[in-house]
């Protein structure tokens, strides 16, 4: 079947979709957006979290056909989404998603760029993305995309969350590397920076 929906502000069309495919599979394997991760396929880890019409959901449990006509935001579009939100516009602008997956060339060169270890890349990052880097909340990084989408949504509806609020909001996202302490730090940091910016 064919499925049409909007991803990160850009209309997308996927053809020859098997009816049992999840939204996650279509994003990763058909639309070249592998940022959302496949770690359990049963809604028990949160690595595939995306916004579906603004609501955080596990994209592994959304049938692709159910996304027809709806708006999806993935980690790849998070920076634009956050920027437009901060500018007061509707957060559905285009993101730079390409139509292919990760090719071999990209894989060989994943970080073949000089880095001075002091700053993140100067590209546009959402505040929560920068905070995750700065706080040391990223280790293997496989849980990171889902956590970012969930944490960004938390800060959108609750600008000054308590620790208990953060823990509850992120209780659907497993991380195996960090012990969560630095993830908490990152959300606190993003909230504090957001507060300073207002």
């Amino acid at each position, binding site marked *: 079947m064919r499925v049409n929906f909007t991803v990160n502000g850009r209309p997308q069309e996927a053809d020859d979709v*098997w009816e*049992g495919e999840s939204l996650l599979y279509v994003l*990763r394997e058909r639309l*070249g957006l*592998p*940022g*959302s*991760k*496949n*770690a*359990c*396929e049963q809604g*028990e880890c949160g*690595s595939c979290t995306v916004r579906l019409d603004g609501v955080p959901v596990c994209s592994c449990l959304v049938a692709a056909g159910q996304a027809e006509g709806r708006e999806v935001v*993935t*980690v*790849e579009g*998070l*920076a634009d989404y956050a920027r437009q939100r901060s500018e007061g516009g509707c957060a559905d602008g285009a993101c730079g998603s390409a139509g292919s*997956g*990760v090719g*071999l060339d990209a*894989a*060989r*060169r*994943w*970080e*073949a*760029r*000089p*880095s*001075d*270890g*002091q700053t993140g890349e100067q*590209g546009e*990052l959402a505040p929560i*993305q920068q905070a995750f*880097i700065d706080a*040391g909340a*990223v*280790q*293997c*990084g*496989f849980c990171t995309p889902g956590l*970012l989408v969930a944490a960004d949504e938390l800060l959108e509806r609750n600008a000054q969350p308590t620790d*208990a609020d953060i823990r*509850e909001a*992120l*209780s659907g*996202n*497993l*991380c*195996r*590397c*960090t*012990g*969560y*302490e*630095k993830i*908490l730090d990152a959300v606190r940091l993003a909230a504090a920076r957001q507060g300073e910016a207002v």
Partner: protein
Amino acid sequence: MATTGTPANLTQGSKTKGGIGESTLRPDGTLKVTGEFAYSSDMWHEDMLWGHTLRSTVAHAEIRSIDISEAVATPGVYAVLTYDDLPAEMKNYGLEIQDTPVLAHGKVRHHGEPVALVAADHPETARRAAAKIRIDYAELPVITDEASATAPDAVLVHEGRDDHHIGHVPHPNIVHRQPIVRGNAAEAAERADVIVTGEYTFGMQDQAFLGPESGLAVPCEDGGVELYVATQWLHSDLRQIAPVLGLPEEKVRMTLSGVGGAFGGREDLSMQIHACLLALRTGKPVKIVYNRFESFFGHVHRHPAKLHYEHGATKDGKLTHMKCRIVLDGGAYASASPAVVGNASSLSVGPYVVDDVDIEAIALYTNNPPCGAMRGFGAVQACFAYEAQMDKLAAELDMDPVEFRRLNAMEQGTIMPTGQPVDSPAPVAELLRRVKAMPLPPEQQWVTTEGADVRALPGGLSNTTHGEGVVRGVGYAVGIKNVGFSEGFDDYSTAKVRMEVINGEPVATVHTAMAEVGQGGVTVHAQIARTELGVTQVTIHPADTQVGSAGSTSASRQTYVTGGAVRNSCELVREKVLDLGRAKFGTYHPAWATAELLLEGGKVVTDGGEVLADLTDVLEGEAVEVEAEWRHRPTEAFDLRTGQGNGHVQYSFAAHRAVVEVDTELGLVKVIELACAQDVGKALNPLSVVGQIQGGTTQGLGVAVMEEIVVDPKTAKVRNPSFTDYLIPTILDTPTIPVDVLELADEHAPYGLRGIGEAPTLSSTPAVLAAIRNATGLELNRTPVRPEHLTGT
């Protein structure tokens, strides 16, 4: 962070920004937060096929027949492979013992063993085709424990063993046995005023890394194959893959893809050979991605263990002797079992002084799931048991459990039960003192003016208590872990370092085959290059097999060994750069010939701080490159009868204090705080160090209260291969983890550093268990603790 006693002259060139000792940021951080980082499951290739593995549905059976005709005939299927299709003489693989069939041959030995492979144009096509493969199994009795493994009429899990352990094991269903005898435990026992014994059980833990096994194999025109994969040791994979494919190693070109965590679970091969076989057969790129269910069968687990311990002590609290017998279940294939036995036996005393010991550790072959490497292996199981014993002894002697441990704590100079002296700081007593001195968290944090905040109580959002039945407990534990590969293994690493001018700036490139699995090795390598070469810009080349082996990202060894190799190669590069400088500018300043020269801030400077040249000028038109191997001090094998030998190169120590609240009626536990003190020698990147300690601590918490692969003892089948029923801690289960980092340099190690990744996983579990015992008064001899154990149901 507390810093104690860092010796002088161990760090050099630290004036360059972003060098060692700073919390520099991950070079892959931006890619990881934008979703652009290419994990092995994200790989994509035009015209790519999907591989699928058909696995055994029974644990132990003869395969009478396999019928693939219907599967082959399925539209969209490109290949179906079984054992008969394997192209080379070599049809097995294994880390140490090549006992694992690439595809089952005539027999399956555990639930979920790979039997056949399918390549198809869509994963669903591959699944449907695999379901059409007919396998006729004749089931055999299952070996599930020591009694069934060593019974006189026991079926042999492996017939005709010819590995190098078979000569010294008492039964062919025992992989390896390591006794350690020192002093005379029987005589020493007579001096004891109290003797305590215990039988302990450690459940089967899973690494549960979040990125399931996956990779992409691409056939090449020269008949070789390129493999993009998530692993812990590229060259070890290569050594096992190439012979089975019938290819020379240079025709199997491996590149490390993004690794979604490892924790030991990627030391053994999973889909690597399978993807290559399918790619070579079909002539098309083949991607294999396990789902979570398959992942539970796709890698080894932590050895479950039965541990029998006896300790004695005098009434003034000095340990007299220790006897123990540790039985590790290795499952159907050897994997890392021999090394696990070595660690369990040699570290079975823990970080204590005991001169008279009688130790035996064995690993079994059974039909249970294969077990192998997981963070802290061997040492983790032993620590759970000996720390329970320490609490029992303290209770018998009516002593404070921390003071009792401190009284018997090892220190630098202590002789290990293997006869090896501990030749670097061993601040066991100090770590215990520090962790005990930390302020305790406030009581009853759930009390609010609105009523009870259930999120702060056992049961959490499940609303099981508003304070009823809740009792607090506090417990302590400390552990010892060896760092690096032990027992005479040639544990080396290789680093290629290049220095050149790019866009008018000196840039260093570091190329190693080190598997970055999340630990932050890439961050540290860049820091070392900045420190040693005085540059700001460092490029980390992707890890591949175009450079020499880095050894495994295991055993807390990478910062030590590959970090050491990077430093060594940087030093060699520095000498070459200085030679270049002398050749170009030596005549302009006498210091070129006479002074100690350093590279700092992009310049060549004298140790007095005088600038002699810009690196851009020295390197103009030149590139300096060195690839060199580096080794830590050699170790020795343990004697097979006495266990004596200088088997280890370094140790790592951590102590924990756990504070728990237990709903004693429902048997539910909430860990309130898990404080840790650890000696790290030298924190090359303090942020990463603390992250490792907190992560390791949390994995220890998991196996204390929830994590266990449950295997049916009648069928040897796994009962909970999913994230629904294999539970790992969520953010609501994980407490605050205050960390006190001690830096006592090991003068034998690069920068004085100590491998740190595993030690926090050891003591976390027994600390939580001790706290639960403290709250409930129950004996609790097994981990994980389940509500049934706390409620007697």
